[in-house]
Each structure stands twice: as structure tokens, then as C-alpha cells.
């Protein structure tokens, strides 16, 4: 503790109170401070998340009974497209790296900021600009897009809805993601504090490093694909249009060359967060540090080799099918390495049950189900049975909501006291978690059964025999929403009335817990010299 106080000795103003060149909102949207940009991202993404949740609730409400309930097919098509586009491009992809990565990456490696602070701010503008274009696309041209978030050709070329503008928005958001990745990779290479060797970095930083490379090398591919969709619509270049000699499967290839690695952009940082939370609440050094670090890299690498498993029923060649199916199973290895190491870390530790750990545990639970059902999707024979059914919907909600979103909430509960200097009500957070986790399982688990029995995805109507499971699922969506409301209420309340959080409420040993809460504008008065690993609880 004596060493801690060295970094705390001079109590300065926090980054929240800092007086810069600008006042009011300008002091935020003109700030190049990585912590302010992180909070900008956090606020904007949570806003989009809430819109996405509302759209999801509307879809579930439509599906509460067979036949038309509250909306017609065209409205339903637009709503599931928007739900997908908003949740994927505006919440889970930027998600943890842009909010928590921006805030904590420099602190974790003992730096004052990222390598390119102005580019960092620029990336937020691209993000908001892209989001604005998507919103404008709803009210102009042919109206809200109805292609699904995948924009599959040739339908996306032919539909009268406003695809071009929405796709341009997605392109800008992709560019924002590239800039974030570029910043992180450079920062990790250049700005580590003295003594902060590669194997002394917190595992969250490792996961951001792997993610950064995927953002850099995969996103441009979808960028050019989206631009080509616009070219198809305006100039009829015909690359993806069978009527013009083009090959629509090529679109699917290009799309998934990005979008499968993008799945790892979504999940890797989440795994990084879990690797931070588990050792702190088990009071034990992480089990297999290097194995976890390298498994992040190998997930990023294998992520490039498996995109074809989204296309088993598309008419792709049989050779490609078995090659991609075989390679898909490789992903299970590094994912398994991580899961077993987390569990092994907890074994024999003195576990303290707290909200961040609860979310981490639900991550492991949900991600295991999501991951194992992924193998069912990855095997060609079973995939043909369940392709484009609710089984797939259940699978990716277990990985994306149960995985990434739970890790996101876990990160929020873990770092909230550090970011705002206020502590939320632990009791309320525990209750909210219980409701959320229950609602989550009631909402998404029936989808596996529905899909297995043949309920196709993206339909606004269904046969009466699916009624019971759909009804259960819809009720689950209300429980989940209640949990979310309670969780957000807890945070908002504590911003105003919460107790002051001390600098290290959880007893963490990474660098962010050694400085005051909220952190000073430049994080460290002196750059610290690091002499031990990140999860050293022995002292």
C-alpha cells in the first residue's frame, strides 16, 4: 500500500473537472483526451443500444402470437434490419474497444494518452457521422432498408429502399473502427511504460492488440464491398448481379471475409475484460497468462480462415464446404483454452461475489452455450438442417448478448467507480443482474428449440405449433428489459447520489487502480516504472 500512495500522493483535479480551452459540450466533443473520448463513445453507444433494445422488444411483441399482431411484413423486415445494423455496427463492434479500450488502454500500459489523440477524436466523428447517415436513410429515398444487416446481393441492389445511404453510413463506421485499431496497435507498440514488457501487460491489452489487427486488416474488405454495392446501384457494374454475368456468391465471400473476423472484433475484447475481472475477484494470479495472451492472437488469426461456414447452403463448392467446416472447429481450441484457464484461475482462489464477477460468470456460462452451439452450426450436415432458423438466432444472441454485452456490463460495473469516482448500489446491481440473466435465458433459450423444430428466422408470422415457445421468449424479453432498466437506473442514481468511490474498491493490481478515481487528466504525474506482472496479489 505504501507503493500505491506514491502514485496517489499529489491529488490533482480529475479529467472530469479539467478546465480546457472549451466549456460545456464543446469541452467534450473537441477534447482529444482518451478518457473523454471513451466516455463520448460509451454514451453514444449506450443510446444506440437502447434504441436497438426497443426495436428488439417490438419484434418480440409482433411474434407473441401467430399472424399479424402489431405490424405488417414490410415494417417487420425494416425493424429486424435496423435492429441488426444498430446492434452490430453501432454497439457490439465499436463496443468494448472504443469505450473501455480508449479509457483504460493507455492507463493499463502506463501512458498519458494514445499515440494519435486527434485521430482518436476523428474516429468518434466518423462513428457519429456514419450513424447520422443511417438515421437519415430511414426518412429519405425509398425509406428504411429491408435487406437484413448482411446487405446480401442481389436483393440489396434491387430493393427500392434507401440502401445506398445506409451502406455509406456503415462504411464510415467501418473507417472509424479502422482508426481505433490503428491507434491501439501503435500505442501498444510505442507507449508502454519502462518495464512494461509484452508479458507484463494486462490481458485486456493483449485482447485489444489482437482486435486492433483484425480491425485493420478485415474492415477495409467490407469497406470496398459496401462501396461496390453503391456502384452497383448507381452504375450497374454487375460484379454481384447474376443478370449481368456477376456472381452473387462473391458478395457473400467478401462480406464474410470481413464479418466473420468482425465476430472476433466483438468477442475478443470481451474475453479481455473477463480475464481482468476473474483474477481480481478470485484474489489469485491468472492461470496460464501466456496461454490466454496467445489464444487471443490465434483466435484473431484463425478468424480469417473460416468465413465460408456462413455459406454452407449458398451453393458454394463442396471442397470449400469441407475445408471451411474443418477449419471452423479450430476456433474451439483457443476459446476452450481461455475458458478452462478462467475456471482454473478461480479454483482455490478466495472468491468475492460482486456484480462484475457475476457478469463474468454469466459470460462464461452463456458463451459456453453459444460456443458449443456454434460447433453444431459449423458442421456441414447439421448446419443444413438449422441454417437460417431460430437456432442460429439463439446461437449468436448467446455469444453476442450473453458474451459481448454481458462482458460490456461487467466492464461497466468493474470500472464505473474508476471512471466516475462514484460507487453504485451493490445490492441493486446484484438484483438487476439476477433479473437480467433470468430474462436473457428465458428470451433466447427457446430459440434453440424453435430453430431445431424448423422455425425460420426473419419471419413476422409462424405456424400455430410454434406459439408456446414464442410466447415464452416474448415474456423473457420483458424480464430482460426490466433488468436493463434497473441496471441503468442504478448507474444514473449513483452518478448523482452515489458514495465517493475510493481509488481501489475491488483491490485490483493493474495500473488503473493505483491512481485516483476519477483519473487525473494526464493519468500519471510521473510515468511509472513497472517491475512485476499485472495480477500480482501476493504483496
Amino acid at each position, binding site marked *: 500500500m505504501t*507503493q*500505491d500512495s*506514491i*502514485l496517489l500522493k499529489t491529488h490533482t483535479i480529475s479529467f472530469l473537472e479539467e478546465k480546457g480551452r472549451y466549456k460545456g459540450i464543446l469541452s467534450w466533443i473537441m477534447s482529444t483526451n482518451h478518457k473523454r473520448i471513451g466516455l463520448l463513445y460509451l454514451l453514444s453507444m449506450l443510446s444506440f443500444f437502447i434504441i436497438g433494445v426497443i426495436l428488439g422488444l417490438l419484434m418480440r411483441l409482433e411474434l407473441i402470437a401467430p399472424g399479424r399482431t402489431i405490424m405488417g411484413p414490410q415494417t417487420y423486415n425494416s425493424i429486424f434490419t435496423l435492429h441488426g445494423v444498430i446492434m452490430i455496427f453501432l454497439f457490439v463492434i465499436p463496443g468494448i474497444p472504443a469505450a473501455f479500450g480508449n479509457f483504460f488502454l493507455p492507463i493499463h500500459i502506463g501512458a*498519458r494518452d494514445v*499515440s*494519435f489523440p486527434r*485521430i482518436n477524436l476523428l474516429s468518434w466523428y466518423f462513428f457519429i457521422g456514419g450513424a447520422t447517415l443511417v438515421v437519415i436513410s430511414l426518412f429519405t429515398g425509398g425509406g428504411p432498408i429491408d435487406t437484413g444487416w448482411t446487405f446480401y446481393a442481389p436483393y440489396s441492389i434491387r430493393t427500392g429502399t434507401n440502401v445506398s445511404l445506409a451502406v455509406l453510413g456503415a462504411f464510415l463506421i467501418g473507417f472509424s473502427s*479502422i482508426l481505433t*485499431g*490503428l*491507434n491501439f*496497435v*501503435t500505442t501498444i*507498440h*510505442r*507507449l508502454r511504460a*519502462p518495464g512494461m514488457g509484452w508479458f507484463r501487460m494486462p490481458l485486456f491489452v493483449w485482447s485489444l492488440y489482437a482486435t486492433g489487427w483484425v480491425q*485493420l*486488416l*478485415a*474492415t*477495409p*474488405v467490407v*469497406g*470496398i*464491398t459496401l462501396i*461496390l454495392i453503391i*456502384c452497383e446501384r448507381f*452504375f*450497374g*457494374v*454487375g*460484379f454481384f448481379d447474376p443478370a*449481368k*454475368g*456477376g*456472381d452473387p456468391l*462473391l458478395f457473400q*465471400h*467478401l462480406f464474410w*471475409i470481413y464479418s466473420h473476423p468482425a465476430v472476433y472484433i466483438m468477442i475478443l475484447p470481451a474475453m479481455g475484460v473477463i480475464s481482468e475481472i476473474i483474477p481480481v475477484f478470485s484474489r489469485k494470479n491468472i492461470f496460464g497468462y501466456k496461454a490466454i495472451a496467445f489464444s487471443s492472437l490465434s483466435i484473431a488469426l484463425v478468424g480469417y480462415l473460416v468465413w465460408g461456414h456462413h455459406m454452407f447452403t449458398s451453393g458454394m463448392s463442396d471442397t470449400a464446404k469441407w475445408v471451411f467446416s474443418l477449419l471452423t472447429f479450430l476456433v474451439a481450441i483457443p476459446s476452450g483454452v481461455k475458458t478452462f484457464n478462467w475456471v482454473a484461475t478461480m479454483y482455490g482462489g478466495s472468491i468475492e461475489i460482486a456484480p462484475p464477477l457475476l457478469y463474468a460468470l454469466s459470460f462464461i456460462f452463456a458463451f459456453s452455450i453459444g460456443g458449443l452451439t456454434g460447433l453444431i452450426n459449423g458442421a456441414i450436415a447439421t448446419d443444413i438442417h438449422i441454417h437460417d432458423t431460430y437456432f442460429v438466432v439463439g446461437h449468436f444472441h448467446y455469444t453476442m448478448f450473453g458474451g459481448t454485452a454481458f462482458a460490456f456490463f461487467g466492464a461497466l460495473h468493474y470500472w464505473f467507480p474508476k471512471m466516475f469516482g462514484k460507487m453504485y448500489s451493490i445490492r441493486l446491481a446484484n438484483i438487476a443482474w439476477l433479473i437480467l440473466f433470468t430474462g436473457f435465458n428465458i428470451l433466447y433459450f427457446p430459440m434453440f428449440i424453435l430453430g431445431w423444430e424448423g422455425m425460420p428466422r426473419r419471419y413476422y408470422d409462424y405456424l400455430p405449433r410454434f406459439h408456446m415457445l414464442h410466447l415464452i421468449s416474448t415474456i423473457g424479453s420483458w424480464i430482460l428489459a426490466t433488468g436493463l432498466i434497473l441496471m441503468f437506473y442504478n448507474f444514473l442514481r449513483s452518478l448523482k447520489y452515489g458514495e465517493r468511490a475510493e481509488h481501489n474498491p475491488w483491490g485490483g*493490481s493493474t*495500473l488503473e487502480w*493505483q491512481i485516483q478515481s476519477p483519473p487525473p487528466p494526464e493519468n500519471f504525474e*510521473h*510515468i*511509472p*516504472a*513497472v*517491475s*512485476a506482472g499485472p495480477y*500480482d496479489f501476493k*504483496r
Partner: protein
Amino acid sequence: MISITSFSVEKHTDYTGSKIGMWLFLFTEMLLFGGLFLIYSTYRAKYPISFHVAAKDLNIQIGTLNTILLLTSSLTMAISILSIKNGSRRGSASFLMITIIFGLLFLFNKYFEWGEKIAHGIYPGSEALSVIDSSIVLFYNLYFVMTGLHALHVLAGIFVLFIMFVLLLKKNINRHDFVKLENTGLYWHFVDIIWIYLFPLFYLIT
């Protein structure tokens, strides 16, 4: 775990860091073009004969001239950076201007070349193309999209080169701080490399 040393961060810009950032950006550009090269190779593998036939209509002379123009502009760009390293701001600015002129000449040729094609009714979605074999049309559309995207990059490059020229005159770039110019150079050479591949893939497959 932590101890304080008297180590303090030097405020000067991180030279290697900026270069890493620029290279990373170039890799994203490479993958951006990579998507198009993927499409190109797919259709080339599918319709080899149509591609040979269609490529006959491209003007090898103009293509070769443009290759030489870009290669030479890369030389002058490199010399411009060499000059500022050796302290000659004036030399650097002159060679930068020559680079810009070569870039503009390249675009002028491109304009001339495209103009001729369009005058013959060959452009994406044109009447003349709608009656011939679709695989030949794919070649032309690829030609327009790929060289078009490349030309846009040349245009952006010229714009940035011009900004660098102004910064040089303002002494904002000088012999002690020229990483901006060096990064611009990296970008310019990268655009050159893309052309090095585009040239044989479109013009030399007759």
C-alpha cells in the same frame, strides 16, 4: 509493483510511432484494393478468353507512359525527402513540385484515356455494353472501378502533396521535423505500387 523513477516523457513527437501508424494505414489500403483484386482474379479465372479479347481495346502506349510517369514521380518524391534530410528546403520543395506535376500528367492521361472509352460508348451501364457478352462487360467495369479508385488515390495524393508543399514553404516541415513529408512519401509510393500491379493485369494480357 510500481516505483517512481525520475523518468519523464520527452514531449517531442514519436517519429517511429508516426511511421508505424502510416504503414498500418497503408496495409488497410492494401486490403481495400485487395477486395477488388479478389474480384478481378475470380472473373479472370472464370473468363480468361473474354479478358484477353477485351484487353485488346486498351491503349498499351498510354498505359506504359503512365507507368513511367508514376515511377518517375516516385523517384522525385524520394529525392525530395532526401533533400530535406540534407537540409535543402528549397531543393525539397522543387522536387515536390515536380512530383505534383508528374501526378497531374498521370491524371491528364487517364482523363484522355477514359474520355476516349466513353466517347466510344464504353462506360458502366452504357448502351453499347448492354449488347455484348457480359464477361467482356465485367472486364470493362473492373477496369473502370479499379483504375478509378486508383485515380482517386492519386488525386488525394496530389492534394496532400500540395499541402506538404505549403508546409515546406512555411518552414513547418524542416530538416529536424519532416515525418509528415516522409509519411506522404510512403503514401505516394504505395499508390505507385498499386499501379505496378494494375498495369500488367489490365493492359498486358492481350
